[in-house]
């Protein structure tokens, strides 16, 4: 696109530089300028369409990855829910980046009950293999996405293997922190 633009401008300058009265007769330059203009717009249009498709595909991939964490996030949400508050919607769990930050703050301030810890630990164990299976999907997004996904998978593994309160709290903090970083990565 840039090439077409530059060549077009160069040809236009040449054409204007000629400055004779019969500039449009027996001259290939106007034809070439038209060709460059067509190229500029068509290539630009296709590039835009392609970029948008790529962005949509990547955002769908990221959403699939977030979807794999829905059960753990949902258990964390229930565990940290204030009295009489409504649990988060599935859409929030899958898409909302702010939600992870809120959970992190709540976890920092509050304390998980034993039953909730067990639920989170079991959810982590159930989802661990899926998370490993999704590493290639994360790699399709970018190397950074894959690195943070690996970090998330590692914290989920720690959660599933934790055998005391402190290690569950620590792993849950790590999990939310890594997920927050993963969400911040540009597509």
């Amino acid at each position, binding site marked *: 696109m840039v090439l077409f633009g530059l060549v077009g401008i160069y040809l236009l300058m040449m054409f204007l530089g000629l400055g004779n009265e019969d500039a449009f007769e027996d001259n290939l330059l106007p034809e070439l300028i038209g060709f460059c203009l067509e190229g500029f717009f068509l290539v630009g249009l296709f590039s835009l369409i392609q970029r948008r498709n790529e962005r949509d595909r990547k955002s769908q991939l990221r959403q699939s990855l977030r979807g794999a964490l829905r059960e753990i996030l949902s258990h964390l949400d229930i565990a940290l829910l204030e009295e009489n508050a409504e649990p988060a919607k599935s859409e929030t769990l899958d898409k909302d980046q702010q939600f992870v930050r809120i959970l992190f703050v709540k976890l920092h301030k509050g304390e998980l009950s*034993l039953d909730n810890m067990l639920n989170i630990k079991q959810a982590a164990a159930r989802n661990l293999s899926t998370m490993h299976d999704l590493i290639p999907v994360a790699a399709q997004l970018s190397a950074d996405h894959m690195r943070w996904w690996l970090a998330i998978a590692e914290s989920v593994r720690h959660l599933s293997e934790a055998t005391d309160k402190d290690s569950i709290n620590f792993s849950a903090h790590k999990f939310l922190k890594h997920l927050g970083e993963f969400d911040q990565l540009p597509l």
Partner: protein
Amino acid sequence: MTEKDYSQKAFLDFLRHAAVAGLISPATARSRKLAAEQLMVQLKTSERRDLRQLDVDELCSRFHKLQGSTIRPENIQLYNERLSSGLKDFICWTDEPVNFKSVEGEKPESIVVAARDTPGQAQAREELTLNPPRSPHDIFPVPIREDLVVYLQNIPLDMTRAEAEKIAAVVKALALPEEER
């Protein structure tokens, strides 16, 4: 004497009235109403007429079967608790409005019991919950010294002699050379 009304409509009216009259907090009433709205779509006609016949656990499993994944299982559990306590209050209030006392604020039995634990008991409870002992049938204790027992785990029932020798070889490789002992 008028017949007492235990219908679904009476329940929803009770939630509205209880919040206005200050019998329960408006936030509790709202959360119970939302739970009722979510779960009570699966009520049978007889249950709709008389909520005393309703088994909330059974309703939740029915809901899970029929509605599939419209609500996440962990949310259903939460709604179960809220609807159950709402129904308890409703039945108590309908039976004897004069002596009504809400269950709002009452903690589950498990939390009340856990709160009475000594530090040692709390530690044991934590260990049992988060790190339960494995089935004794798949762990073989091998006492090798007076104060030391080694455990073998995941031994298959159809283990061959060759496989047993393989394990023995690994264990032998871990031992210190004779001269060092």
